[in-house]
C-alpha cells in the first residue's frame, strides 16, 4: 500500500509540473465558464433576474373599467414583491423599454378593450381587441409571469361575463328586473367579478432543505459544474495515458524489475489519477466560489460527491489505458469520450429535454450522475439526497476499474 501511495504521489507531482495539463485542467474550465457567463450577462446584471420585482410597463389606452381593473391588479399589494409596474402612455416607448432591457415585458391595453367585453347601451359588445404583451425573449420566466397575470385576469373577466349573463337571465325570468335594466345589471355583475380582491397569483416557493428563501437562479450554477466535470475527463484520460507513456519511457518496466508488484503499480496509478482529479475539482470549486460567488451546496456532501465522481471517472481512465495500445490512441479515444460524455451528461446544456433513450444512455457517464447530484446539493440537498448518486458512481468505478485491472494483468504490456 505504501508503494502504491508513493507511486500515486509521484504521478501527482509530475502532473503538477506539466504546464499543458494544468492549462486544460484548471485554466480552460475557468475561462470557458467565465466567457459564457459574460455572454449570458451573468456579470452585467442583464441576465435573467430573480423571480421578484419583475419590471413591467403598463399602457392603458382604453381608460375604462376593465382596463383600469387590470392596471389595479398589477399595482395591487398581492403582487407587490413579484412585479414592479410602471405606467406609460406611449406604446412605442413601452416597447422601447423592453428592447432596452429596462423592462421584462410591456402590457399594452388597446382602446376599446372594455367595450369588446362589456356590452354597450345597445347590448352589443364592441369588436374584439386583444391585449398586447410585448416581452423580452431572454427573460422567459419573467415574461411568462406577466402573461400569467394577464391570462388570469382575462379568465376572471370571462367568468364574470358568464356570471352576468346567468344572473340577468335568472332575474328576467323571475321578473325581478326589466329588459331595460338587464344591460346595466349585467355590466355591474361582470365588473364586480373582474375587480374582485381575490389574489390572481399565488407564488409559493419550496426548497429541499426547508429554507424560507429559495436561491436565485444563477447561470453559473449550470456552467461551472458542467465544465468542471467535462474537464475532469481530460485529467483521467491523461492519467490513463501516463501508464502507456511509462511503458514507452521504460519506467514501467523498471518499476517491475524492482520488488514492486503489479498490483502496487496499478493501484498507484489509480491513486495518482484520483489525486489529480480530486485536486482539480477542489480547486475549481474553491475558485468559482471565490470568483463567481457560486454556491455549490453542503460542503461535506459536495466533497463526498466529488470524490465519488472522480472515482467513477478514474474507472473510465483506467479502462482506456487497458484497451489502448499506444499513448496516442488514449489521447484520441479519450478526447472523443470527453466530448461525448460532456454532451450526454449535460455539461453543455441541461439534459432534461433529452429523449427517453438518451436519458438512459447518459447514465453511463460520470457527468450525468455528478451534475444531477450537484444540482440537488446546490438547491439545498444533503448527503442523504445524493446517496444513490454516489453509490452509482462507486459502482461505476469498481466495475470499470475491475475490468481494466483484469485486462492489464493479462496483457503483455512490455514489448
Amino acid at each position: 500500500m505504501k508503494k502504491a501511495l508513493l507511486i500515486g504521489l509521484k504521478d501527482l507531482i509530475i502532473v503538477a509540473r506539466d504546464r499543458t495539463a494544468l492549462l486544460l485542467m484548471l485554466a480552460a474550465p475557468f475561462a470557458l465558464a467565465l466567457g459564457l457567463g459574460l455572454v449570458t450577462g451573468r456579470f452585467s446584471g442583464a441576465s435573467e433576474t430573480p423571480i421578484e420585482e419583475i419590471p413591467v410597463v403598463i399602457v392603458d389606452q382604453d381608460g375604462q373599467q376593465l382596463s383600469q381593473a387590470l392596471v389595479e391588479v398589477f399595482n395591487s399589494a398581492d403582487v407587490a414583491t413579484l412585479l414592479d409596474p410602471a405606467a406609460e402612455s406611449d406604446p412605442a416607448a413601452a416597447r422601447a423599454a423592453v428592447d432596452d432591457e429596462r423592462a421584462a415585458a410591456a402590457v399594452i391595453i388597446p382602446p376599446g378593450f372594455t367595450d369588446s367585453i362589456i356590452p354597450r347601451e345597445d347590448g352589443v359588445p364592441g369588436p374584439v381587441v386583444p391585449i398586447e404583451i410585448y416581452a423580452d425573449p431572454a427573460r422567459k420566466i419573467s415574461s411568462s409571469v406577466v402573461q400569467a397575470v394577464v391570462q388570469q385576469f382575462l379568465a376572471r373577466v370571462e367568468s364574470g361575463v358568464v356570471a352576468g349573463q346567468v344572473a340577468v337571465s335568472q332575474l328576467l325570468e323571475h321578473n325581478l328586473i326589466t329588459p331595460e335594466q338587464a344591460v346595466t345589471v349585467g355590466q355591474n355583475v361582470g365588473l364586480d367579478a373582474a375587480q374582485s380582491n381575490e389574489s390572481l397569483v399565488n407564488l409559493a416557493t419550496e426548497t429541499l432543505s426547508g429554507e424560507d428563501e429559495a436561491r436565485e437562479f444563477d447561470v453559473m450554477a449550470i456552467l461551472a459544474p458542467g465544465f468542471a466535470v467535462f474537464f475532469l475527463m481530460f485529467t483521467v484520460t491523461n492519467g490513463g495515458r501516463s501508464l502507456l507513456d511509462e511503458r514507452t519511457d521504460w519506467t514501467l518496466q523498471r518499476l517491475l524489475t524492482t520488488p514492486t508488484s503489479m498490483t502496487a503499480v496499478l493501484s498507484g496509478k489509480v491513486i495518482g489519477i484520483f489525486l489529480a482529479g480530486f485536486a482539480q475539482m477542489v480547486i475549481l470549486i474553491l475558485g468559482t466560489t471565490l470568483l463567481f460567488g457560486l454556491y455549490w451546496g453542503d460542503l461535506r456532501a459536495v466533497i463526498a460527491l466529488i470524490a465519488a465522481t472522480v472515482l467513477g471517472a478514474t474507472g473510465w481512465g483506467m479502462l482506456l489505458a487497458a484497451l489502448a495500445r499506444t499513448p496516442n490512441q488514449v489521447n484520441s479515444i479519450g478526447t472523443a469520450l470527453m466530448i461525448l460524455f460532456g454532451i450526454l451528461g449535460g455539461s453543455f446544456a441541461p439534459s432534461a429535454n433529452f429523449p427517453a433513450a438518451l436519458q438512459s444512455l447518459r447514465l453511463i457517464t460520470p457527468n450525468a450522475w455528478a451534475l444531477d447530484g450537484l444540482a440537488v446539493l446546490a438547491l439545498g440537498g444533503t448527503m442523504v439526497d445524493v446517496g444513490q448518486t454516489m453509490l452509482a458512481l462507486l459502482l461505476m468505478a469498481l466495475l470499470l476499474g475491475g475490468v481494466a485491472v483484469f485486462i492489464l494483468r493479462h496483457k503483455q504490456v512490455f514489448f
Partner: protein
Amino acid sequence: MSDLIVTTNNLSKSFGDVQAVRGVTFGIRRGEIFSLLGPNGAGKTTTISMLSCLIEPTSGDALVDGHSIRGAPQAVKEVIGVVPQEVALYQSLSAHENLLFWGQMYGMNGNILRQRIAEVLQTVGLADRAKDRIETYSGGMKRRINIAVGLLHRPRLVFMDEPTVGIDPQSRRNILDTVKTLNEQGMTVLYTTHYMEEAQELSDRIGIIDHGELIALGTQEELSQLVGQEDVVELRITEMQVTPALLQALEQASGVRQVNAGDGAVSLIVEDGHAALPELIATSNRHEARVTGVSVREPNLEAVFLHLTGRALRD
C-alpha cells in the same frame, strides 16, 4: 555458496512465431564482469528481461543467487540492480527526486536512503546537479543517473543493457570506468553490448549471441583461438565498387579463409595478412575497385564473430 551467481538452463523466449532467445545456457561467476556481445536484435535485451523477471521464459529456467526466476521472482528482484538500455527516468523530476523514488521502490527510506543517494551521485560524478530536472541533462548525464538508480540498493549483481548507446566518448569513458570501479568493489556485472571494444576492455568472460543463440563463450583468449592465428584484413572500398565478381576473386586469393562485405569495407580472414595484402590490392585494382584504406588486425572478437556467423558484428 555457489561460485556461480547466475546459471541459465536452456532459456528460451518466443513472441508468437518469432524465437527471440533459443536455448541459452551459461553461468556467471561471482565477482566477474560477464559480457553478452552481439549485434542489434540478437536477443541480449530479451535475455536480460527474463533474468530480471520482467518477462516469463517460454521454456527453461535460470537461478539468480540461488533464486529461480520462475519460482521466486520477488527474491530475484531483491538482489539484482537493472540498468536498462532506455533512460528510464522521470524527466520532470530532479535527479535527487528520481533517486528518492526509485530507492523507495527498493524498500529503502530515511537517512539510509538519503546517504546512499549522496554516495551514488558521487560515484557517477553528478552530485552538483542533483537538484536539476533530468530533462535539463545531456544524454551522457542521463545515462549516468540511469546507472545510479540501478546501484542504489547495493545489489550483488547488476544487469547493464547497452549503457553507452548514443553518448559522447567522454561520458562513455566515465561509464566504463564506473563499471570497473564497481567490479573492483565486488559487484558482479552482466554487461550487454554490440561494441567489441567495450567487451574487450571490461570483460572477464564473453558470451557471443546471435539470432537468439549463444554461439560462443569464454575468455578473450579462448574465443580468439576459435579463429586460430589468422589475421583480419579490412579493405575500405566504395560500396558501389564491391561487385560479386570482386568478392569471388578475393575468396580465391591465396590464404584467404573468409570474405565479408558491408559497412563500406570488405573484411577478410587471412592466414598471413601482411603477406596477402599485395595480391588482395592487385585483385581489387583488376576489378576496378579503388582501395582507399587498409588495415591488418590480429584476431579479435570481431574476427571471431565473423568466423562464426559470416557477418560483421555491426551488420
